[in-house]
């Protein structure tokens, strides 16, 4: 592989420019409200990397985001926009928590794979509904996955307020078996670094291999690139759309599992927050490349972790959501950046 070509192609430049421009626009917003952007960004940086707790918090935030980023990115590879990672996280977490409460009698080397498989199957099945509806009923996956997000949220709220509620009236599930919980690597105060980060790192490798080295990856990419040509070449569009959604959903479901087995030790209902939408940002910044996605996940987790410190410095932390919005907008309209660059080049030549 040509390293220079890998590091400095058009796509990477678009991502970097998008991130830079969004940070500059955010800085302008800060100046408008009378705050010093340098101070705010320094606070952000300190909040993300300044202390041991911050770094642990950062890694723990990045772990599920790598998985939802990979989930959305894998969908993009197949030409599918999986906007439903949130729902898949919710269902994956629910199933793994349920299995987690049943495996108390098993040793960890059985119970841990079981909860992980349950989470992946849950997410995969939830996403495969949208894949099937797209492949065989012609329903656009954006609409179906959004609807499935809401259905998942209602299911989650129902179970933690009813059949899967721990005694005590609080909307949460019983705690999962000890043997199903991932051990911590280290703890500083109340923050713990869980081994779930290794699940995310392994997923990067697995997805990289699937995309680059397997028939599944080749067929999925072919369908995403040009479905008609792929079908002409003997690749089934329908099968691969369902399969791609299922793999994408399995990754999102696994993100849900990591929160149950590595962070909370139980199920809290629809608490997936913005993981699914963050996954979209991350896949776009990472240009659907597994390594790019890992880096983008750490960028977003750093901004999110640091935002609390920035808020203490007087800049509302919602600014990071604005930054994310601008990044996505610029990646979507990448011709804006291309136009700016061409204009600059022309000026330089003139």
């Amino acid at each position, binding site marked *: 592989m040509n390293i220079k070509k890998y590091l400095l192609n058009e796509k990477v430049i678009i991502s970097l420019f998008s991130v830079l421009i969004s940070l500059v626009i955010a800085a302008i917003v800060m100046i408008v409200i009378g705050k010093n952007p340098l101070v705010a960004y320094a606070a952000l940086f300190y909040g993300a990397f300044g202390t041991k707790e911050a770094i642990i918090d950062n890694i723990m935030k990045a772990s599920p985001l790598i998985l939802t980023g990979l989930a959305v990115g894998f969908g993009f590879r197949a030409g599918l926009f999986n906007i439903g990672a949130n729902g898949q996280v919710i269902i994956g977490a629910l199933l793994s928590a349920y299995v987690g409460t049943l495996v108390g009698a098993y040793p960890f080397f059985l119970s841990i794979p079981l909860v992980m498989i349950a989470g992946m199957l849950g997410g995969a099945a939830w996403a495969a509904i949208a894949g099937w509806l797209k492949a065989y009923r012609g329903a656009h996956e954006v609409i179906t996955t959004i609807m499935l997000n809401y259905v998942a949220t*209602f299911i989650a709220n129902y179970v933690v307020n009813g059949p899967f509620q721990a005694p005590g009236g609080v909307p949460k599930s019983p705690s999962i078996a000890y043997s199903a919980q991932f051990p911590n690597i280290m703890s500083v105060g109340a923050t713990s670094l869980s081994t779930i980060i290794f699940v995310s790192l392994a997923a990067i490798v697995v997805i990289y291999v699937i995309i680059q080295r397997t028939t599944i990856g080749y067929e999925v990419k072919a369908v995403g690139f040009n479905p008609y040509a792929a079908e002409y070449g003997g690749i089934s569009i329908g099968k691969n759309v369902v399969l791609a959604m299922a793999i994408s959903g399995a990754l999102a479901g696994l993100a849900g599992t990591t929160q149950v087995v590595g962070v909370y030790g139980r199920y809290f209902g629809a608490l997936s927050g913005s993981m699914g939408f963050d996954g979209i940002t991350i896949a776009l910044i990472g240009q659907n490349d597994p390594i790019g996605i890992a880096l983008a996940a750490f960028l977003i987790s750093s901004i999110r972790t640091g935002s609390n410190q920035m808020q203490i410095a007087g800049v509302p932390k919602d600014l990071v959501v604005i930054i994310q919005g601008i990044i996505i907008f610029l990646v979507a309209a990448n011709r804006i950046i291309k136009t700016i660059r061409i204009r600059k080049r022309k000026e330089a030549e003139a």
Partner: protein
Amino acid sequence: MNEWIQAILNVFTNPTFYKSTLTQSTPLILAAMGGVFSETTGVTNIALEGIMLMGAFGGVMGSYFTGNPWYGLALGTFFGLAMAALHAWASIKYGADQIISGTALILLAQGITGFALVELFGQPGSTDLVRSIPLVDLGSFKDVPFFGQIFGNLSPFVYMAFASVIFGWILIYKTKLGLRMRSVGNNPEAADTLGINVYNVRYFGVIMSGLFAALGGAYLSIGELGQFTTNMTNGRGFIALAAMIIGNWNPVGAMSASLLFGGATAFNNQLQSQSVLNLSTNTQYIFGMIPYIITLIVVAGFIGKSRAPSADGIPYIKE
């Protein structure tokens, strides 16, 4: 079984259910109408949710600073138009992926409203109470049994919503501009050949969607409540999008689907308060998911068949 029949009868004979259906449907109808305008010209607009949020926030902001809720409505509308213009600019001029651009705008709206909320009102969560748009008081009509209780004291937004349906239907199906909108949405190449400016017609469609979606959002904040709360649209933009699809991209169809969704919500709320049933609180979640499941079934073509404009979502690049 008997108590269920009793409870359902109670709900359907109570004017509150019908009034609540109207008020629940109003923001959906307005936003769905926005969706119809945009997608008829061939530009997908999943940013409705974000535009509504900006409309809601602008409404409260304008009312707060001027003391006049009508100025609030103007500011909310302006915010919505600005968001839509951004979407139009990226997706028409720069051929951006319209779904991704829409996603970006939803995030932007959440970020901007959350940021401005803390900056202007000093706390996250909710704004101060502001003056809301006064209700339309029909005077002595209020005393008419049943109907008076439904229609006697409605927000002007409710009337606006139904007026927008008539306006949209006439514009799209009975005017020259409407014919151009439909042709640009179905076959931009042919429209271009006939001398229609595809870009301008699409700009018009997307910007109209900003206007209507912002009105729908403003209803939520200054329609009755007089307050903005974080993420108060709560997915209504997506429901409006679903209503537009179920309604087959047609103003009257979108209105009917919005009424169905609004009615389902109203029914759910009323059913919860029926003491004969003595429902446990978690049943609201089971009933709550029904509109979304209906949407899935309809989108999958199991009931009826909805068809998008042929060029919906595809950027048009002039050769």
